[in-house]
């Protein structure tokens, strides 16, 4: 009778699909978890500046463009709906729905980013104008950078969708940018609520 133990390897065993979540989906969630920590660090700074140090928010004489940012919020939240629609469409092999959903999501994301850049140019204060200005630009800028990355992912997915890629059984290339896009959306809801309104 043969008895043999597997060779002892240094460190953990080789990775295999033992998780109930697909490895690539799990990967994007782990990445998002690290992103939440990054945003958390910026929100901690915001908390200390505003609550602990008692910095007036917004510091006079500056004003925040709450209305324009509100419209931008509406655009970004709507883009989550179109993203979800795109994925639901491809799950039913509806390529037209996928293409329309991705294109609309991309255009709305681009509108959001351009509006934010325009807002920066007219807002009347800079990051050097005190703790308020620094935190405002850090939080909205960090989010804007994430929107820009999301747009690149969406662009790749959109181009692939128009070239006939993806099907009801193979659509990771849409699902993963979709999860990322929803994360960007949730983060904006938090940023808008805390920085602009409250």
């Amino acid at each position: 009778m043969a008895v043999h133990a597997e060779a002892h390897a240094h460190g953990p065993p080789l990775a295999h699909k033992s998780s109930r979540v697909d490895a690539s989906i799990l990967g994007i969630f782990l990445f998002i978890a690290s992103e939440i920590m990054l945003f958390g660090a910026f929100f901690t700074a915001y908390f200390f500046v505003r609550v602990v140090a008692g910095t007036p928010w917004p510091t006079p004489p500056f004003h925040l463009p709450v209305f324009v940012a509100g419209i931008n919020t509406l655009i970004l939240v709507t883009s989550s709906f179109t993203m979800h629609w795109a994925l639901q469409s491809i799950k039913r092999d509806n390529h037209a729905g996928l293409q329309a959903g991705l294109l609309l999501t991309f255009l709305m994301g681009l509108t959001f980013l351009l509006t934010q850049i325009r807002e920066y140019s007219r807002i009347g204060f800079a990051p050097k104008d005190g703790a308020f200005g620094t935190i405002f630009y850090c939080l909205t800028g960090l989010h804007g950078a994430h929107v820009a990355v999301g747009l690149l992912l969406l662009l790749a997915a959109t181009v692939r969708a128009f070239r006939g890629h993806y099907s009801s059984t193979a659509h990771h290339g849409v699902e993963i940018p979709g999860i990322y896009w929803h994360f960007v959306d949730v983060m904006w809801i938090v940023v808008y609520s805390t920085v602009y309104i409250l």
Partner: protein
Amino acid sequence: MINPLRSEAEAFRFVLASLAYFAAIVLATVLGGEWVGLAVFIALTALVIGWWLRARRAEQPVQTRPTRQSAAGERRILVIANETVGGETLRDCIRQKTEGYREEVLVVTPALNSPLKHWASDEDEARAAAQKRLDASLARLRGSGVEARGEVGDGEPLQAMEDALRTFGADEIIISTHPEGRSHWLERGVVTHARERFAVPITHVVVDLEREREDVR
């Protein structure tokens, strides 16, 4: 770990939930002032945490099935044991279950580790110790004529079983533990949880090594 978000659809629902959560807080603050906003924030957060904990408890585990079927006349047995694989009871059980079959036995020894070392990813020592126990177990099985191979598994016995089930594809799992009162695994309900989690027959073998040693004496 239970992942509350497993797909884009769940992430999308999370967007909607976040929207409702922050809208309620903002509305309360605008209409009633900062303190009302804070109260709504605390109440909603408590509500969400309570709901999440309840949902976690109510969630039925998805049963894991073996990834491959054994050929006719073949039987794959997965034995999960920390240090009790040397017991006569277990060896008899394996022999009984594989009688008349071309057997393939995989012994998995979890690399048990302290929680602190686990979180620090300091598991080399635990894996080396598990490897020693595994080598000893396999030697004992060889002595009693059982064909087996072995591997060191995850420190969490249920995860070690799931990993092995996916790579080895067992027809049956044998969990070997110490008797009640001396077994940490029984205290933690490993056997019960395994029966809920895996869609294969599970046999629990209690091995009293101390009594066997006394019997030998």
